[in-house]
């Protein structure tokens, strides 16, 4: 047990804990003024955030202990559960928040956003599919891509129906990332990219996007276009971050934040709180923590001793990286505004649970590696060896 703890990726864990801790503070700062002016408990959001953080960490602990390879048996269940969850959203149990019909009401003031666990499920099930298809030989087979796309199409389609463009994009990136990491030949990838581009053009041309989505892209291109309309959020976000300067205005002292000039600040625009109140120093620390998180995820993927672990960890890495880049990018005005939260930092229980579950999976892959990493020269401990399934023990 102690040895297992020592084999955990502590750098990854430290980054996650630091991000979550900063996230809690930023959510608190982003919400306390609004709560006060609305006559509510200024700490309400903080408490709820800490509660989901605690549950998520417990969940991550359990998942860490669990041998990820067991998922090769339970994989289909995970996938089906995710699809059922997404179907429930479209049933009468579903709830609409901010124009997105993305929630299931759990009663008692709790609700779940099934598109978040669907991200984990997709990482697991796609990794499983590709691993199984290659179990016989170790090479690429031409059916890999259609099968993968077919499996992914169901959850992505359901998310699009909500409609939740942001989550659909994350799921798509997970698919793409896993295909890339699964060493799908470049000609396939090129073909897919061209098809996707053509599809995007068609979607815009055929008017399949809502006007607000087109407006957001237009506003992204030119935020001064309509500062009180679609460009308002982008402009206010940039003002908040820009006015933070080098050292920031201090936690709870940001004027843009306490004045609630940035909409959705505790969720999608949480990075603006860091920018304004903690300044470049704090925001850069946040960015470094994310870099560490993703770097370690990639290391875990690269050192996984089976394809399943590598693909799953790689998929999770692409997921985190994409969400982080798009979220921070949109607050900085270099990406269009899409409803994508910042992992571990934004307020939101479902995302927190999904993210921490993914971290548990990463730790599990790391913990259940067969041999010591060549760099450290560390030997496999007895405890770890006994935990390995028999057929891999030899080698």
């Amino acid at each position, binding site marked *: 047990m102690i040895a297992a703890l020592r084999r955990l990726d502590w750098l990854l864990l430290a980054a996650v804990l630091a991000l979550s801790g900063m996230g809690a503070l930023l959510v608190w700062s982003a919400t306390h*003024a609004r709560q006060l*002016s609305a006559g509510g408990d200024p700490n309400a959001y903080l408490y709820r955030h800490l509660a989901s953080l605690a549950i998520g960490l417990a969940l991550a602990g359990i998942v860490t202990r669990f041998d990820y390879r067991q998922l090769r048996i339970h994989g289909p269940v995970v996938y089906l559960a995710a699809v059922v969850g997404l179907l429930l959203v479209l049933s009468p149990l579903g709830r609409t928040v901010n124009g997105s019909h993305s929630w299931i009401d759990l009663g008692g003031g709790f609700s779940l956003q099934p598109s978040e666990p669907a991200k984990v499920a997709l990482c697991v099930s796609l990794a499983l599919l590709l691993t199984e298809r290659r179990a016989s030989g*170790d090479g690429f087979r031409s059916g890999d891509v259609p099968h993968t796309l077919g499996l992914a199409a169901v959850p992505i389609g359901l998310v699009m129906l909500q409609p939740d463009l942001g989550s659909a994009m994350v799921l798509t990136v997970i698919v793409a*990332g896993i295909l*890339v*990491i*699964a*060493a799908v030949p470049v000609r396939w990838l090129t073909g897919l990219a061209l098809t996707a581009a053509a599809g995007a053009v068609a979607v815009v041309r055929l008017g399949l996007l809502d006007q607000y989505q087109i407006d957001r892209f237009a506003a992204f291109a030119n935020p001064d276009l309509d500062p009180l309309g679609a460009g308002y959020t982008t402009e*206010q976000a*940039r*003002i*908040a*971050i*820009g*006015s*933070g*300067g*080098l050292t920031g205005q201090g936690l709870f002292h940001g*004027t*843009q934040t*306490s*004045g*609630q*000039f940035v909409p959705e600040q505790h969720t999608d625009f949480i990075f603006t709180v860091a*920018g304004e109140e903690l*300044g*470049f120093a704090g*925001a*850069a620390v946040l*960015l470094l923590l*994310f*870099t560490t998180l*993703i*770097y370690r995820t*990639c290391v875990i*993927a*690269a050192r996984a001793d089976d*394809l399943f672990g*590598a*693909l799953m960890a*790689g998929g999770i*890495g*692409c997921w985190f*990286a994409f969400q*982080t*880049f798009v979220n*921070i*990018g949109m607050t*900085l*005005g*270099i990406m269009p505004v899409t409803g994508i939260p910042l992992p571990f930092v934004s307020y939101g229980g479902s995302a927190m649970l999904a993210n921490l579950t993914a971290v548990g999976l990463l730790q599990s892959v790391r913990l259940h590696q067969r041999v010591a990493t060549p760099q450290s020269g560390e030997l496999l401990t007895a405890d770890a060896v006994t935990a390995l399934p028999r057929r891999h023990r030899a080698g």
Partner: protein
Amino acid sequence: MKRTRHRLLGVRVLILSLFAALGVQLAFLQVVAGDRYREDAQDNRIREVVTPAARGLILDDLGRPLAQNRSRFVISVNRTDLERQPDRGEAVLERLGRLLGLPATELRQQISPCGPGVTEPCWNGSPYQPVPVAEGVDAQTALQIMERREDYPAVTAELVAARDYPAPEGARAVHLLGYLQPADEEEMAAQEARGLRDPGLQRADLVGRAGLEKQYDDLLRGTPGVTRLAVDHAGRVTGTVEQVAPVPGNHLVTSIDAKVQAVAEQELHAAIERARGQIDDNTGRRYEADAGAVVVMDVRTGRIVAMASYPSYDPQVWVDGITPTEYQRLVDEESGGPLLSRAFQGGGAPPGSTFKPISAAAAAAAGFSLTSTYPCPGSLTIGGRRFRNFESQDYGDITMARALEVSCDTVFYDIAQRMWLRDGGNQPVERPSDPMQRMARSFGLGQPTGVDLPGESPGRIADRDYKRRHWERTKDETCRRADSGYPELAPSEPARARFLEQLAKENCADGFRWRVGDAVNFSIGQGDTLVTPLQLARAYAAIANGGTLWRPQVAKAVLGPDGHPVKTFEPEATGQLPVSRSTLDYLRDALVGVTTHGSAARAFAGWPHDEYPVASKTGTAEVYGNQTTSWFATFAPADQPQYAVVMMVSQGGTGSGTAAPSVRKIYEALFGIGREPVLPGGELPTGLPQIRPDSTVGQP
């Protein structure tokens, strides 16, 4: 697995470079462009509420306030506080409505910010500014609101300054002082264009629109105080960031003397009444006396001691808010345009014989002897036309001085004709010398005097250039008439139609030509030449003071809110008459003769001529289609001149009959003849009034 690791390495490189891009953009926004965004953030969250500054006083030479501020109670509603009430202030408005006798719905309407879909009355000021809902309420109502704070949250009763024109000694000085009106869109835009906004002019601010209030608006207005409030995204006030107290405006000390001003106003009115009591021999009707003006100037400095105009109006209409119909009446031609001061605005009038001293000066400068005599027949035929001697009869051969005394026209006709011939007559030389027109310009006619009052009329000198320009402007119509004649007049007035057609034919052919008739008319101030009473006062002051043309000034000094002098306005000479000392002396003596035994002798019967010799000239100017304009231009004491007084009454009859008796009364007041002098010691004060720290004013 090997290829997977390769791909993973590629993915890692891609992700790290994307994150590096985030870092670069972050550094740019926060470190490089941080200052700009900090400003934007300030604009975002700061709203300004303006406390108006008390406007400065306008004082007369002894410190009597001509314009001051009067306190009155104003009830205002603070919208921010009202919205915080549990029922959004419904109960408060209900209660306030009962107290003020207004329906609560009307109060609600008044405080709603103007915008699309909001009907008047609405509030077009800043939404953070308390909205005044009742002005000038009685003290008892105001006290109820002040003492029962708990019943009237979000409602304030304050003493607010309103402009007041108290007319000390009866001096209303309406046209001198001007009036205030709220800043309009144009002024706001102009201010924005100049880049001024902090704190600058606010939408509800009063701005001087005429007279001294306009001329010295910047000095009088002061700087409004600003309270900077922090607000959130919905505009709710979250705190006070900064508070800057208003700086009261400066006080303006003028050279106007309230007592002299009052006398001038009364005497102008008396002259108009006098004219209206007389029958015009030409028309058989009473004189209309539709307008008039009087100027009293200190000849040693050009400062205005008094200046009045008729018709006038009640300045209170501006203070209480003017309705469009009232405003129409004020600017309406029918009512005589009471907003215009006839002393320096409204175009001016032909000066008539008051112009003759200028003609005489021109004659002297052109070599006509002042010691020889000139024939003064009853009429003179010049260029085939008979020119009558309007105001006098045949005096035989007389001196130039006598010609001025009795206002003999024919003497000046003859001189003007000879000057015209010298310039080549109908075939003018290359550069005509035009001595009289040139002299008129040297006396400051045909150009603004530069008085420190806005909207001054420049007047007009009807010379060769003017005639050519006028012909070019009108020749199309003239030539059309030359062809078609006047068929509409022919049946009823065949003689007049024939005359007008003939005139049109001549004018069409060579109406641009400077004819002898033009030169002759010009010499006695008739025709198209226009002069304002202020211009004439300055010209006579120059004869009096030895030839200096002063820039007329009303402002004497600016005092800070605490009374310390900020600025003094020194007399400013703008020119010197090209007239010799001896000619000026000659003119002065001749003009004294007008008063003692000339055209003004009757009006000055019994006057102590030895003690206070008055130099004067009467004028009775013809205006086509109207009754004659009465002029009287003077200065006194002639041996040691102090004042120039000029009065003009439009359609008012003769100079000697209408204006002269009133000007005499003004001199009586100034010198204390048969009464107490209105000035302390009979002299204009030289020092400035004192403003004490408690804002009371002391005499100099």
